């Protein structure tokens, strides 16, 4: 691979996992109560995809990373304040819904249209990265649908490792049942990778990277046009948090021996 890869990372924002989420009904279907007030983070698996993309780009000369995000402009801006300090990328925002109740088909269509609109992209050098599932919809469908729209037949999901071999092919590790990985070898780009956690730690904030990124991030956010997401015939009858509250029996006065005995009997039942 002499010319490097064009790596497009798809990743949006989700509510900070520590927040309490309460669904509310709206004319357009379910939504989260005070959704725009909730602090947001970059979707965790998409974040791993971004870090892996930056790592790969740093190893293969001539590579470039784009981050394509579909989400409310204000939330994207908030999240970019931290993410933009971690790795180098060119930001391509789309001002639209990042709701977990948005249809994966509509989101994939919007992503495909946006990616196809990046003039600089060479489809023969293209690697599409993203999280294998999001922490919002969590369907694991968007990346596949996007790959179909981009006519990419080499797709991998639950990816924990991507290694470029000497001949330019990729060795890919995908998660399968039983805590195992399926190993595949793909001839090369174009390909699509839905990442699980990968193996890289979260990069440290680097103000210099942040300053470089923000030169493109803010103008891109200003240019981002609102894009509606059709429901695609998806009609919700209800959306509710789990109500089950267990009556916990708190055992304070048993010795470790007695507790072990009780648990052993319970395990053996």
């Amino acid at each position, binding site marked *: 691979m002499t010319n490097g890869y064009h790596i497009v990372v798809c990743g949006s924002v989700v509510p900070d*996992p520590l927040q309490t*989420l309460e669904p509310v009904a709206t004319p357009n279907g379910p939504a989260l109560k005070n959704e725009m007030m909730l602090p947001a983070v970059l979707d965790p698996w998409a974040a791993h995809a971004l870090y892996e993309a930056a790592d790969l780009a740093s190893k293969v000369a001539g590579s470039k990373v784009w981050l394509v995000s579909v989400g409310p402009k204000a939330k994207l801006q908030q999240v970019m304040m931290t993410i933009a300090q971690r790795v180098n990328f060119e930001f391509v925002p789309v001002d639209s819904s990042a709701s977990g109740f948005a249809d994966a088909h509509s989101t994939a269509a919007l992503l495909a249209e946006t990616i196809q609109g990046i003039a600089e992209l060479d489809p023969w050098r293209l690697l599409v990265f993203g999280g294998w599932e999001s922490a919002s919809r969590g*369907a694991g469908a968007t990346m596949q649908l996007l790959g179909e729209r981009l006519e990419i037949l080499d797709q991998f999901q639950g990816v924990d490792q991507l290694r470029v071999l000497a001949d330019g092919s990729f060795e890919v590790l995908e998660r399968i049942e039983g805590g195992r*990985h399926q190993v595949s070898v793909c001839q090369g780009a174009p390909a699509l990778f839905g990442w699980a956690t990968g193996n890289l730690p979260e990069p440290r904030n680097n103000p210099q990277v942040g300053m470089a990124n923000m030169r493109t991030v803010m103008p891109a956010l200003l240019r981002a046009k609102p894009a509606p997401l059709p429901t695609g015939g998806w009609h919700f009858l209800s959306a509710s*948090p789990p109500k089950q509250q267990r009556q916990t029996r708190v055992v304070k006065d048993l010795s470790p021996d007695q507790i072990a005995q009780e648990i*052993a009997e319970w395990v053996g039942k």
Partner: protein
Amino acid sequence: MSKSILFLAHVSDAGNTLPKTSYEVLGTALKLTKQFGARLTIGLIGADVTAAAETIAAAGADRILAVSGPDFATARYASDAAAAEAICRSAGAELILAPATSRFMRSLAGVAHRLNGCVDTHVTTLEAVNGELCATRWHYRQRIEGVFRRSARPWIMLLESGCEAAWTGQPAAAKIEEIPVTLPKAATRTVVTGVRAPKSDAQTIRPDANLLFVAGAGWTKKQADGKPHVDVAEKLILDFLRVSGASLGGSKSLVDQSGESEAVLGFMTHLNQVGQTGSTPRHAKGLSTCCHGEEPHVVGWRFINERRAVNLDPNCGWARGKADVLYIADAFEVVAKLNALLAEKSRISSEAVVSQD
């Protein structure tokens, strides 16, 4: 009112049966077939589907379709999507039910696009309401449950395991209609070369285990003597997994420690992580130890039926209102005693088996 339902499955790794969860999905497909007065078609994918087809031949499907051959032996997106697309087009079904195995989770959404249909994954319930099919699945990583219907057809649904009773029946001869699929060269650029187990010395993830053992970050923290005892924790946990046959889950804080240069449990990887950003495994029982935290962690055992916890904090959010029993105790002491008890129990039962022989 749907007139045709397709139950789609692939053969298991063993090659002569279907993955366990497929029989549960078949049970659901048969239930819906009866409710809607529909026709049921079975579609199978694999290197050789004959033996697997015989295990479900007695289910009473109108047709059994198959795409088989060496090209379809392994889970590769391009070949699996081509095979599933061919079966779906031949069946012409409006509803397509499939198990949420890793193989199908990686390919059927793409098939929905090719069929100009729609897809839903991680479906936990399918019900007929006023003559219309309604599906249930979780959003925001098991924190909000949504019930919905779709107007687009065909509608592909991947069902989670443990949500429906498995269909059972005697093996019988199966009349299989083979659908020829020739892969274009572009669909063979990827070759599956094998399966790799995680770096752990022992296999710690056991999806079929009766018990999930959840280890929290407390195992690696300073203990009563002011020092951490990670080596002791490792031995206790591995011994417990060995004598109990449990599967191992870890909280995010524990799994993340390896990236933060803190003391770590050598066998714990991101594959073990349960919770908001990990998995939500399905086991009959769950025992959490040294865990702390609130909702993001607790979603990790959303689908665990019976739950117990061992913790030093009586107000632990992981357990209060979420577990059936919370033991206030030192997990190091309890698990050591527990291991001894389970080992003794195992020894006695194996001696009993020997004496019977």
